[in-house]
């Protein structure tokens, strides 16, 4: 029991547990399947936001092109689903039965070589992670090894987002163009559109997201996490301590891309289509807003940020469709100016102290006693980071450098 408590403290798992209960128990009980499916869709964006916490919050490198990786993962999954939905019987009215409908409309008469491996689910699943990671590696290797960073890197990721969008829209016969890939129905014969399947996919999404958060938390609590913060604030000191700073940046960027790709694939599965509107600059910036609102230093905060902004988007865009974009921009500016560490920062700076004060007055041992007990506790070396406050989670000057 003590070991479990120790683990929870060490990796700050309490907040993850609360999130797990909310996503896995409370929301499924409170919402009907239509709304829950919507939440599931938002949670796929949360994969991107969690990745942004690593690359932007911890790594100090702002990427405004995460939509590209979300899209690539989504397209890899969608290609498999589209091929399965395009069997010769359903597509017999086409001039070339057995190929996706948009290819037929574009006078393509045989399945392009690029598409052939996507007939196989294992390959598609591999591509969901590998393709975004590979592109991220190419971009980040070229940039970080040359010490391009900060604003310049952000601009380059925007350019990549634009290029990939233009490419997808332009190559209509291969990608479905501006409409994307629609009518995705089954995975190996299993219909993904039933309520039952939607529940399963929702839980798959929640499990994947929680696993991603735990993985990132594990990185943060280790030496690599410390180094990321160190090189964000004192790049030269890290370099002159014998570390190749670029390699660590490349790793985080690739990690964020892989997470985004997984999110994209789960999007295609749950929503049943994929289109360029999730790839370009606007969705990429929106994803940064999710992370900023939730708190760019908090993995769990990023998930709440994503859910809140999207819930707001759904609500407001129904009521004030013309105003939504302006409100989104105002939200981003407001958040970065008023509470730069997002909701998680507010929690840390306002809610937690209030809670501690309250608890302090209701007969709990005075802080000195707690401190002494903590120091005496077995398994916790005295020099290790204290469970709270010891870790440099909220640096005043963190972020865009």
């Amino acid at each position, binding site marked *: 029991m003590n070991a479990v408590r120790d683990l929870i403290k060490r990796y700050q798992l309490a907040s993850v547990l609360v999130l797990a209960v909310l996503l896995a128990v409370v929301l499924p009980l409170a919402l009907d399947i239509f709304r829950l499916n919507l939440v599931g869709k938002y949670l796929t964006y949360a994969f991107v936001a969690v990745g942004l916490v690593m690359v932007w919050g911890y790594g100090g490198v702002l990427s405004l092109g995460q939509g590209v990786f979300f899209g690539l993962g989504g397209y890899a999954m969608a290609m498999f689903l589209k091929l399965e939905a395009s069997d010769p019987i359903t597509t017999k009215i086409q001039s070339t039965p057995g190929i996706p409908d948009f290819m037929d409309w574009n006078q393509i008469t045989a399945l392009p070589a690029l598409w052939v491996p996507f007939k196989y689910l294992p390959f598609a699943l591999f591509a969901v992670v590998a393709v975004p990671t590979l592109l991220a590696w190419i971009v980040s290797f070229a940039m970080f090894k040359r010490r391009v960073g900060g604003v310049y890197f952000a601009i380059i990721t925007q350019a990549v987002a634009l290029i990939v969008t233009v490419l997808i829209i332009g190559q209509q016969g291969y990608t479905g163009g501006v409409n994307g890939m629609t009518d995705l129905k089954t995975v190996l014969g299993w219909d993904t559109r039933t309520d039952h399947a939607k529940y399963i996919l929702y839980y798959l999404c929640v499990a994947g997201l929680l696993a991603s958060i735990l993985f990132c938390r594990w*990185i943060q609590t*280790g*030496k*690599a996490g*410390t*180094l990321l*913060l*160190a090189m964000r*604030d*004192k790049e*030269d*000191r890290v*370099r*002159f*301590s*014998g*570390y*190749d*700073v670029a*390699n*660590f940046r490349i*790793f985080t960027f690739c990690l964020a891309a892989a997470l985004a790709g997984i999110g994209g694939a789960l999007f295609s599965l749950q929503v049943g289509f994929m289109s360029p509107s999730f790839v370009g600059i606007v969705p990429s910036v929106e994803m940064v807003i999710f992370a900023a609102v939730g708190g760019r230093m908090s993995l769990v905060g990023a998930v709440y940020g994503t859910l809140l902004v999207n819930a707001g988007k759904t609500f407001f865009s129904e009521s004030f469709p013309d105003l939504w974009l302006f409100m989104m921009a105002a939200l981003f500016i407001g958040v970065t100016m008023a509470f730069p560490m997002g909701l998680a920062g507010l929690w840390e700076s306002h809610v937690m102290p209030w809670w501690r004060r309250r608890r302090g007055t209701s007969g709990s041992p005075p802080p000195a006693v707690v401190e002494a007990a903590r120091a005496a506790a077995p398994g916790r*070396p*005295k*020099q*290790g*980071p*204290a469970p709270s406050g*010891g870790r*440099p989670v909220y*640096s005043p000057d963190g972020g865009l450098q």
Partner: protein
Amino acid sequence: MSNTDFALAIEDLTVSFDGFKAIDALTLYIDKNELRVIIGPNGAGKTTLLDLICGKTKAGAGSIKFKNTELTKMAEFKRVRLGIGRKFQTPSIYENLSVFQNLEVSFPKGRSVLGALAFKCTDEVRARVQVVAEDIFLSDRLDLEAGLLSHGQKQWLEIGMLLMQEPELLLLDEPIAGMSARERELTAELLQRICKNRSVIVIEHDMDFVKRIAHKVTVMHQGKILAEGPMEQVQADPKVIDVYLGH
């Protein structure tokens, strides 16, 4: 260039910024176990020289050999791994991390990405941190956030971070800036202790301090070496008095 017995051999080193020669055909040899102090007026190129050795600035021409390995084309982190440690002029430490973490991060294991992911703070690391912390007078401050240290203690911490790597050549840029008289004394003692089994180059302005620690002094002026030798000899040199020490 032939190989030598020197720890560091710099020959004909030149670097210019927009035509201004910050280092001008400079030749300098540092012995093993030597503590060399470099002095000189502002703009003489002292810090630039350290930048060139550690790789922060790329050399225009000439050669820098450390243990007979040519450094001029080598990446910075590789020079560190070869055994060169650099302390910057203003203390460069991780303010948000504890003193312990500052030292731990500087431990020379787990320097690749995968290595860092797999890195565990073993007893070996803790023992090493403890030893170094005692060396730099901070063994009772291990849990403190480094940003809360005094300026002098930050200087010590940065030296300690270098000691964690057990470097064979230490480059210290103004290690006693901002220190109290007592702290200066302790630092002099520290430097004398740590220059065993390694070479140390110190840039310093405080002549009393230089007298206490230097084995040999090099005076730089306008990117060149003006004089070199024991402190008394250098102090008596009319050229040095003229450009630097004053009459």
